[in-house]
């Protein structure tokens, strides 16, 4: 039985006039169901490209992306959208909350289109924001916004939770708290979580560390003993 997530020789090339840029160059790795995976690499290494492809936001130029037995790379735009809507939860560095909706409403926004969503209030409570549910994003701190963002992703009850530098815009403590939330979610719900970061210090908390550099997968490590976030310092 293949892994829950399998990338086989995934490539993404951009043509810029004469130049061909390989944002991803035959990237292959696997992630098992319920794992907390970290994709690690410096800026511009192609992490986000890989995550976007994995999340159905972008299509690879080549290769296969197996998620729960389906080759996402073969999906058309509509199937991709459906894939995003049913199977994927996204958490961005800049939260990308809808400013005009309250915290709760931002979560509900995602639920509008879901097949079997979780209760928005419940999820918000889980991320510790039940008190701020009625607030607009502008009134929330960065961490709180990111929690809303995570709650929005979780409420959809996705197969995969993809987080693109979720702590990038947060201070250390908040960042840690968010990572903890993600780890707890992974553990508590058995959710497969993929986190992109350039911060290698975070790596020890993951079950699997995928290192990407210059668009290539350098190394995939499986961490048999992931550390709790609290014990990680950077």
């Amino acid at each position, binding site marked *: 039985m293949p892994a829950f997530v399998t990338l086989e020789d995934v490539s993404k090339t951009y043509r810029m006039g004469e130049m061909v840029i390989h944002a991803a160059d035959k990237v292959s790795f696997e992630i098992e169901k319920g794992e907390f995976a970290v994709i690690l690499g410096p800026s511009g290494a192609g992490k986000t490209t890989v995550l976007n492809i994995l999340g159905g*936001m972008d299509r690879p130029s080549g290769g296969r992306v197996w998620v729960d037995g389906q080759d996402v790379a073969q999906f058309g735009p509509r199937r991709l959208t459906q894939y995003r809507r049913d199977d*994927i939860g996204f958490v961005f560095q800049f939260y*990308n909350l809808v*400013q005009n*909706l309250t915290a709760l409403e931002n979560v509900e926004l995602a639920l*509008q*289109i879901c097949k079997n969503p979780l209760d928005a209030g419940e999820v918000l409570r889980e991320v510790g924001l039940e008190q701020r549910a009625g607030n607009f994003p502008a009134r929330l701190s960065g961490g709180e916004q990111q929690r809303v963002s995570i709650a929005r992703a979780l409420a*959809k009850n996705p197969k995969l939770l993809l987080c693109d530098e979720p702590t990038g815009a947060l201070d250390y403590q908040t960042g840690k708290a968010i990572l903890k939330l993600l780890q707890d979610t992974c553990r508590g719900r058995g959710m497969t979580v993929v986190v992109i970061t350039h911060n290698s210090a975070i790596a020890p908390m993951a079950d699997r560390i995928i290192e990407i550099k210059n668009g290539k997968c350098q190394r995939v490590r499986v961490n048999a003993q992931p550390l709790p976030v609290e014990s990680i310092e950077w």
Partner: protein
Amino acid sequence: MKRNARIKDFFREIRGSLNRYLSIMCIVMLGVAFYAGVRSAQPDMKLSVDKMYDDANMMDMRVLSTLGLTQEDVDFIAGIEGVTKAEGGYTAYALTDDNGRHSVVSVQSIARDMNRLDLHSGRLPEKADECFLDQRYMDEAGIALGDTISLYSDQEDEDILDTLRTSTFTVVGSGSYAWYLNFDRGTAPIGNGDVRFFMMVPPEAFSLSAYTVAYMTCDAVDGEIAYDSAYKDYIAGVTDRVEAIAGERCAVRFAQVKREGADKIADARQEIADGEQELDDAKQELSDAKIKLQDAAQEIADGEAEIADGERELADAKAEVRRHEKELADGWAALADAKAQLEEAAQKIEEAEVEVVGGGSAISNNRAALGEKASQFNAFAAQAEALKTAEGYQNAQGNYEQLKAAQGAGLPLDETQQAALGFYDQILPQMDGALQQAGIANPSDEMLGQVVDGALQPTRDAIESGYSQLHAADKEVERGREALEEAKREYAEGEREIAQNEQKLRDGQAEIDKAWREIRIAEADLAQGKRELADGKKEYEDALKEYDEAQAEFDEKSADAQADIDQAKDKVAKAQQELDDLKEPEWYVLDRESIQSFVEYGLDTDRIGAIGQVFPAIFFLVAALVSLTTMTRMVEEGRLQIGTMKALGYTQTAIAGKYLGYALSASLAGSVLGIALGSKLLPYVILSAYGILYDNMTVMLLPIQWDLSLFALLIAVACTVAATYVACYAEFRATPAALMRPAAPPQGKRVLLERATFLWKRMTFSQKATFRNLFRYKKRFFMTVLGIGACMGLLLVAFGLRNSISEIVDKQYTAVWTYDTGVSFDDEDPDALPGIREDLQKTQGVRELLAVKQTGIEAKAGGVTKQVNLFVPEVTDNLDDFVRLRDRRTGERYALEAEGVVITEKLARLLSLAVGDEIVLLRDEVQETPVKVTAIAENYLHHYVYMTPALYQLLYGEEPSYGMVLLRTDTDREGEGAMGEALLRIDGVTGVSFVSALEDQVADMMRSLDMVVWVLVISAGLLAFIVLYNLNNISIIERRRELATLKVLGFYDGEVAAYVYRENVWLTCIGIALGAVIGFFLHKFVIRTCEVDMIMFGQSIRFMSYVWSVALTFLFAIVVNLLMFFKLRKIDMVESLKSVE
């Protein structure tokens, strides 16, 4: 280098955001085009008409005088400061037969130096019997050059030749006259009051003694537009100066007219006197003739009597002559008898003579015989003596026996024997007898003696008696002789007498012959007399007939003549009255404002101007707001660059320059394009549209109205640039560092609606989100709502205008006028109606009919006077079947009431009348009749005053004369041609008009406004399109992240679009609601300003127009949103979310 880089950046910016650049350009272009275009229409129209008037050298002013103007007056006017030229002219109204209808013609003299005609065909008239004809009428009536037009006057007692030298004019040319810009030829005081066409003739064609008008031109104001105040002020000055000399001139004219009038009246009186004299003479002559005729009749009667007498006399004479003839004949017969008798008598005389002679001789013989006898006897007696003795006897017996024996023996006996025997025979037997008798056998002597004597006695006696007889015979003969003598005498007498008688008879015959001759002559005379009498009689009869005829003629003519004389007297009296009443004349100094079509055109330009005040402003406002939002957005987008530039040390001016330049160039280019397009196209469309109404408008000047255009350009550019500057300025206040950080996105806000928790709770999530978003981008919200509202409003006005216009036709011809056909005839003839009515009832397809009187009068109230139609139905109970009088709003039906009139709505509005007010009706411009308004009825075309015939009679003191019959028919449109012909064949019918045909005519007329409607629809569409497209574009760019997030969350394209569209639908709905309100009021404003006096537009917008407007607005919105769909789909999640801006 720096400059270069910035210029490059500038052009790249434009190229990179060409859509935005073009959209600014377009919206500015649209705004400016509309502003400059619609606003230019008014000055263009004015300019065009002014040019046309200048080209025709149309009069600037004219003077009308109540008593006409003389050449001297004209010369005086020409001398007034400011008047370049003055010229006298004539105008008159006449009637002509226009396909059996009396049509009014305005006959005018052709001016020498002004009021030039626009010749389309033929040439200008040169002779007094030539005319230049209205082209419109030429075309409509199918008149060709060379045809003639006959004119006659309205009043029977007026002769057209009093005004014109000839009544028949040959058409030598045709064309238009700038005086008449549209189809309206004005009104006239005669005929049906509507001038059908104009006719220009040389001044020589008029026989009037004074000019009716003096035209003036003022070259000083040729450069000015005649509608403008500069022109009007100048003309007002000249008017004052003309009015200044008016008093003096009027006094002169007054004296002249008085004198002339008095002369004329004197002449007329003389003429009347002559006429009366003539009439009297004629009467006298007739009565003389009558007397003569009577004499003649008497004479004839006498003559007849005479002839009768003559005849009788003649007959008598004839009878007498005949009697005479008969007498004569008898005479002759008698004469013949007499002659015969005479003859006989002669015979008898002869016989008698013979007899007498014979008698004489016999007597002599007898005497001789008797003598002898007596002698014998005596012998015998002597012998017998012998016998007296017995012996003697015996012897004698013896002897006797012997003798007898002898005799017996036949022995010759001598004489003595014989004598003896004779003797014995005579006596013896007798004696024997006597003796035997006596028985005496032996007589004695004595006895014998006795016997002898006895025997002798007879003889003796016989002789004796013979003698006495002889004596008697002698006497007889003597007597016979005497008788004969007598007879002879008588005979002679008879002969004489006969001769005498014969002579007499001959004379009588001669006389008779003469009488016959005379009778013949008399007969001939009589015949002659008879003939003469017959001739005389015939002559008399002829004379009588002649007389009768003369009498009849006289009766007839004298009545006429008397009537004429009476009329003439009346006229003279009236003239005298008039002359006495004659007020000093007044001059009316009129300018071009008195030219109806010119004024109407001016009013129409004002209407277009009014539209120009509203519509372009809306466009402009929207355009300005759109470019403002666009530029603001652009500056906001350029935030990072501004920060960078600032950080690099560029001055604010340099940085702002790019945006200002962008805005400036876009708006400038848009403005210039807009000016070019708008100034030429829109006025062209509008002028063309009006050209349908003003078909004589031959000039169309479409210059760029620089003041308007530059104003529009300046405003457009200023608005855009200022907006840009304001937007830039907001950015410049921030530090470069702040600028380089992403701008804090606008905060989410609770909307008011959320406070209504019970409502908010019930709303779905997307609805909530939609509402939040709606109010989040306030600028966009207002812009969109305004844009859509403007679009909706324009559409609504456009459709509403069409409704209002078509409603005139629809409602007027179906709801108000429910009759189908109007049949007109001569209302002068009161006997025409019954016959026509009967014929109409027999006409196939006619269901119902109603006779009406329709006549043009003036109505006045509160100092405002309007031309109205007085409408009097013959009966009022079925009026509702033909003309529906009802309230427009409530639909309540009105009936005509005895105490007042029903007037139509527009009239009520123009005269500010309400039910219960009084309206003053003017007839013949003098007779003012106030009457109460009992109801105000819906009506769209013309003004009507309805009243009952009873009220008419009460007001005007006469029965209304009906000149029209309204019909309701079963005929459809196809059948109307045949029906029309049938109706026109009816004796006395002069015209037939079908409501359907009127409907078509008006519909045609209204088509010109339809074009304006389409301009508005298209503009509205363009406006909606540009505004919505632009705003949506901005909106999508602004919300790119949000939309990308939705996509990432797995929203399908449709759902993403729906997320946006929901807002747009709401915006569109709100915009439509606002637009409906805008449109409603704008429509009211527009129809009030567009409407002409004679017409009331439909006041309401139809439901379907709302539907159409909404549908079209939605359609435009949908089209724009569909275009947006592709834009939405193109949003790249990765790219949108990657950068933080």
